[in-house]
């Protein structure tokens, strides 16, 4: 599976689930922007390693709203403590998808430790995450995108030929927070 295919599956799942989607810095965010730009997407332009943490803060702040995070193997290896923190809080509305292409794809495809055998699913399990799964095929990934916990999606190295994100940081955040507040008010209206 190419990474952009896995990203497209996640983007479709997020749309169907009315989920927030936090995406890792670099080509993954560019690929997501190219396949399906939604106001509910938060594109990281910096702070490598923190996608899972931003998503966790959101999921804990808004327990009524599902949050999906698209992260990378290199980024998670930079912030491994996040797996223990996710396990500790274990929000049911939170899914971390680690797109594992065994390399730092945005910087020239230098190998990460997963290339040498580091198993991120076992690390998540060892951190105490209750639900940990690995998918290598699109069909398996589709099913796992319905769940919570941590999913490793094994993808091929390489970046799609997609343009840079044409939004400023302020535009990304304003759109995203606008989608959050619109969702809340429409939900409240439905309840009353």
């Amino acid at each position, binding site marked *: 599976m190419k990474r952009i295919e896995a990203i497209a599956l996640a983007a479709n799942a997020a749309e169907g689930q009315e989920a927030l989607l*936090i995406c890792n810095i670099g080509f993954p965010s560019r690929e997501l922007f190219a396949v399906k730009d939604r106001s509910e997407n*938060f594109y*990281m*332009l*910096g*702070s490598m*390693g*923190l*996608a*899972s*943490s*931003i*998503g*966790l*803060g*959101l*999921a*804990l*702040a*808004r327990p009524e*709203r599902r949050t999906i995070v698209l992260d990378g193997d290199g980024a998670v290896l930079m*912030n491994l*403590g*996040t797996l*223990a*923190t996710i396990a*500790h*809080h274990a929000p049911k509305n939170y899914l971390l998808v680690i797109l594992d292409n065994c390399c730092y794809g945005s910087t020239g495809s230098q190998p990460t430790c997963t290339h040498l055998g580091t198993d991120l699913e076992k690390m998540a399990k060892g951190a105490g995450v209750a639900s940990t799964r690995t998918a290598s095929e699109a069909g398996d990934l589709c099913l796992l995108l319905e769940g919570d916990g941590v999913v490793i999606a094994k993808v091929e190295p390489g970046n799609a030929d997609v343009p840079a994100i044409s939004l400023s*940081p*302020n535009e*990304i*955040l304003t759109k*995203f*927070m606008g989608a*959050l*507040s619109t969702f*809340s008010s429409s939900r409240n209206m439905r309840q009353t």
Partner: protein
Amino acid sequence: MNPSLAVFRGLKRAKINFAVSVPCVNLQQLLTMVSEDPEIIHVPVTREEEGVGVCAGAWMGGRRPVLLMQNSGLGNSINALASLDFLYEIPLLMIISHRGCEGEPIVGQVPMGRLTPKLLDAMQIPRFSPAPAQAEETVANAWSLAAAEHKPVAVLLDLQFWRKA
């Protein structure tokens, strides 16, 4: 005034309802107060940089976050403060136990202790170091400033602060 209680009252006055923490011995009482407050979601994390990310997500989700930390964790947070909070203009209140200043018994705390105010100044992060009697008001105002200017603001509390009962 108990210094921990003064800080806690400042957090409550600012309506802080989401606290992320990495412990310091001087934060013990404050961490207990935050944990026991039913209006505050308390999220202990493994590293301060991770905490900057969790706080940013919480703020995007409509919460008012505080990061409770020791100054040693400022070093590992700088990229996140710059390329997440400054880049997207996300407010953050940091309550920082400032080790490595006058009276510090642990030599390893001294280098980072000396550098901490300079690092905050270099990053143009406003910093305040009140006495316990002013801490409640300073903490509340620090959040107001962070929210108004959409940036991180630090309350830096040294060893003398925590010793004043």
